[in-house]
C-alpha cells in the first residue's frame, strides 16, 4: 500500500487532482501547472501510471469514508471539487501578470501576437490561450568589441591603408519587444556583427591620424547611425544608444615610431620656443639701445658742441684713469715705455 501510494504520487503528476483529497493539498500550488504544460502527445504514455493512481485514490477514498452508506458519489464529488479548485487557482495564477516598470509583456493568443502589456498589474486569458513573455526594455546592454575587454589586438584597415588597433563598445536596448522576439533568430549576436561591420566600413573611410584623434566622436556618431540603419532594415526592434571608442592606437609593432613623431613635435616646439625667446631678447635690447640713443641725442641737439666735449672728456677721463699713461712731450725723444711688472721680470731673467 505504501509503495503504491508513493508510486502513484511520483508516477502520476497528471492525476495530482487527488492532492488535496489525499495529502491535504500540500504541494498543490507547485504542481498545478503540470497538467497544462504537458504536451498533448505525452498523455497516452502516462495512461497506465495514471490509472494505477486512480485506483489508489479510489481505494483510499473508500477506506476513509468507508463508514458511510454511499461512498462512491462522495468520492466523485470531492474529485470534482478538487479539480475545480485547482482549475480556479490555475486560471488566477496564469491570467494575472505583474509587469515591472522596466518591463513589457508580449502577449500571444494561441500563438498569434495579441498585444504588449505595459507596466503594472495586467490580466490576460489563462495560460494555454494567452502566454506572456516579459522583456526588459530599459536595461541598456553593452557589447564590447573585441569580446572581454580585449587582451589581444583588434586590427583594422584604415582609409589610407594603415592599420589601427581599435576597441569599442556598443550600448543598446530593446525598442520594440515584439520585433525583438519575432524578427531575428539571434538578435544579440546580430548586434555584434552589425557593429563590427559598421565600424570597419567607417574606419575604412578615414585616415589613420583622423581615426586616432580628431574624428573619433564623428566616427562614433556615424557608426551609431549606420548600425541603426542596418538594424532597422532587419526590423530588429533595437535602439543603438551609443558607440564608444575606448581605444584607438597604432598597432604595438609600430607604436615606437609613433612615439618618435610626438617626440619630434615636442622638439620642434622647443626650437620655436628658443627662437622666440631670442627674438624677444634681441628686440628688447635694440629698443632699449635705440631709446637711450634717442634721449642722449635729444640733449645733444640742444647744445651739440658742449655735449660732445663733455661726453668726450668724461669718457677719456674714465678710460685714462684706469690705464698706464705715457706722455711724450718733446719731439725727437725716444719714449721710455715702462713694461708691466711681469714682463719686466721676464726681460731681466733673460738678460
Amino acid at each position, binding site marked *: 500500500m505504501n509503495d503504491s501510494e508513493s508510486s502513484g504520487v511520483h508516477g502520476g503528476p497528471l492525476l495530482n487532482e487527488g492532492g488535496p483529497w489525499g495529502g491535504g493539498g500540500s504541494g498543490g500550488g507547485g504542481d498545478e501547472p503540470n497538467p497544462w504544460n504537458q504536451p498533448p502527445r505525452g*498523455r497516452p504514455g502516462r495512461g497506465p501510471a495514471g490509472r494505477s493512481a486512480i485506483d489508489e485514490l479510489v481505494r483510499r477514498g473508500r477506506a476513509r469514508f468507508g463508514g458511510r452508506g454511499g461512498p462512491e458519489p462522495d468520492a466523485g464529488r470531492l474529485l470534482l471539487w478538487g479539480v475545480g479548485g485547482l482549475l480556479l487557482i490555475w486560471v488566477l495564477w496564469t491570467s494575472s501578470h505583474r509587469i515591472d516598470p522596466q518591463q513589457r509583456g508580449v502577449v500571444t493568443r494561441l500563438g498569434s501576437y495579441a498585444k504588449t502589456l505595459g507596466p503594472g498589474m495586467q490580466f490576460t486569458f489563462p495560460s494555454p490561450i494567452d502566454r506572456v513573455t516579459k522583456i526588459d526594455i530599459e536595461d541598456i546592454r553593452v557589447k564590447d568589441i573585441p569580446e572581454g575587454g580585449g587582451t589581444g589586438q583588434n586590427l583594422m584597415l584604415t582609409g589610407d591603408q594603415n592599420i589601427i588597433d581599435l576597441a569599442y563598445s556598443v550600448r543598446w536596448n530593446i525598442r520594440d519587444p515584439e520585433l525583438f522576439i519575432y524578427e531575428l533568430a539571434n538578435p544579440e549576436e*546580430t548586434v555584434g556583427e552589425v557593429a563590427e561591420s559598421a565600424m570597419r566600413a567607417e574606419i575604412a573611410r578615414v585616415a589613420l591620424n583622423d581615426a586616432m584623434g580628431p574624428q573619433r566622436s564623428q566616427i562614433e556618431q556615424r557608426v551609431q547611425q549606420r548600425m541603426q540603419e542596418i538594424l532597422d532594415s532587419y526590423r530588429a526592434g533595437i535602439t543603438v544608444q551609443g558607440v564608444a571608442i575606448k581605444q584607438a592606437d597604432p598597432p604595438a609593432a609600430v607604436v615606437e615610431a609613433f612615439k618618435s613623431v610626438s617626440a619630434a613635435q615636442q622638439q620642434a616646439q622647443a626650437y620655436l620656443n628658443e627662437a622666440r625667446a631670442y627674438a624677444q631678447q634681441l628686440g628688447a635690447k635694440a629698443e632699449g639701445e635705440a631709446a637711450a640713443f634717442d634721449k642722449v641725442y635729444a640733449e645733444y641737439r640742444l647744445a651739440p658742441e658742449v655735449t660732445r666735449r663733455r661726453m668726450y672728456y668724461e669718457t677719456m677721463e674714465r678710460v685714462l684713469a684706469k690705464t698706464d699713461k705715457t706722455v711724450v712731450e718733446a719731439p725727437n725723444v725716444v719714449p721710455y715705455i715702462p713694461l708691466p711688472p711681469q714682463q719686466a721680470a721676464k726681460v731681466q731673467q733673460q738678460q
Partner: protein
Amino acid sequence: MNMSDNFASRNVIGLSIGAIFAVVVVSSCFAVVPETKQALVVRFGKPQTVYNAYKPNEDFGRTGAGIIGKIPFIDQIVWIDKRVRNFDMERQSVLSTDQLRLEVDAYARYRIVDPLRMSITAGTERRVEEALRPILGSSLRNELGKRPFAALLSPERGAVMDNIQTRLNRVARQYGAQIVDVRIKRADLPDGTPLDSAFNRMRTAREQEARSILAEGRKQAQIITAEADANAAGTYAESFNKDPDFYNFYRAMQSYRVTFGTDGTEAPGSSNVILSPDNEYLREFRGRR
C-alpha cells in the same frame, strides 16, 4: 458492496481514459503556429498548405500565426523558421587585382520566404546555409578579385556588396530563401609578410613624418630668429640714422669704455697708452699758447 465498489472504480477509470483519449485526439486536431515559425502541413509525405507564410512588412497579430486545424495522425507539420537567420562565411583569402592578399570575413542574413520550395530542395535551414555558404565565398572572391585593393576601403565597397547580394540571391531563390543583407565583417591583411610589410611602411612613414616635423621646426625657428635680427636692425637704423655723425661719436665713446674696462666689468689684459701731446685730449695740457 464489493460489487458496487468495483463498478465505481471501473467507472472512474473508464471516464479518465476516455477524457485523456479525447484530449489527445482533440489536441492533435489543432496546432499552434507561433509568430516565429512557418508551418508546412504534410499529408502522407505530400506538402499541403503553408500556414503563417512570410509576407513582407506585415504587422504582428495579423500574420497567419495562431491555431490551425489538421487531421490527427495523418497531417504532419514541418516547422520552418520565419525569422531573419544568419550564416557566417569561413575566412577567405582574396586576391585583389593589384595582387594584394586580404583575409575577408563576411556574413549573410536571410529568411525563408518560400517554405514549400525550401522543404523540397533543402529540408532544413541548416542545409540551406550549407548550400549557400560556398556560394557566398566564391561570389565574394570573384567580386573582390575584380577590384584593386583600395576599392575595398572606399565607398565602392557598398557596390561590391550589392553585387554579391544579387549573385547570392539568385541561388538563394532556388532554395526558397531571400538574402536580406550581405556584409563584410572584417577585411584584414594576412599575418606574416603582408602584415609585416604594412607595419614597416607605417613605421617608415612615421619616421619620415618625425623628421619633417623636426626640420619644419628648425626652419620656423630660423625664420623667427632672422626676423628678430631684421627688426632689431630696423629699430637701430631708424634711431641712429637721425645723425650718423653723432652716432659715430656716441658709439665710439661707448666702445672706449668697454674696451678699457671702465664699464664695471674687468677688461681682459692691461692697457698702456702713449699719448702724443698733439692728442685732442691733451690739447689743453700744455696750456694755452
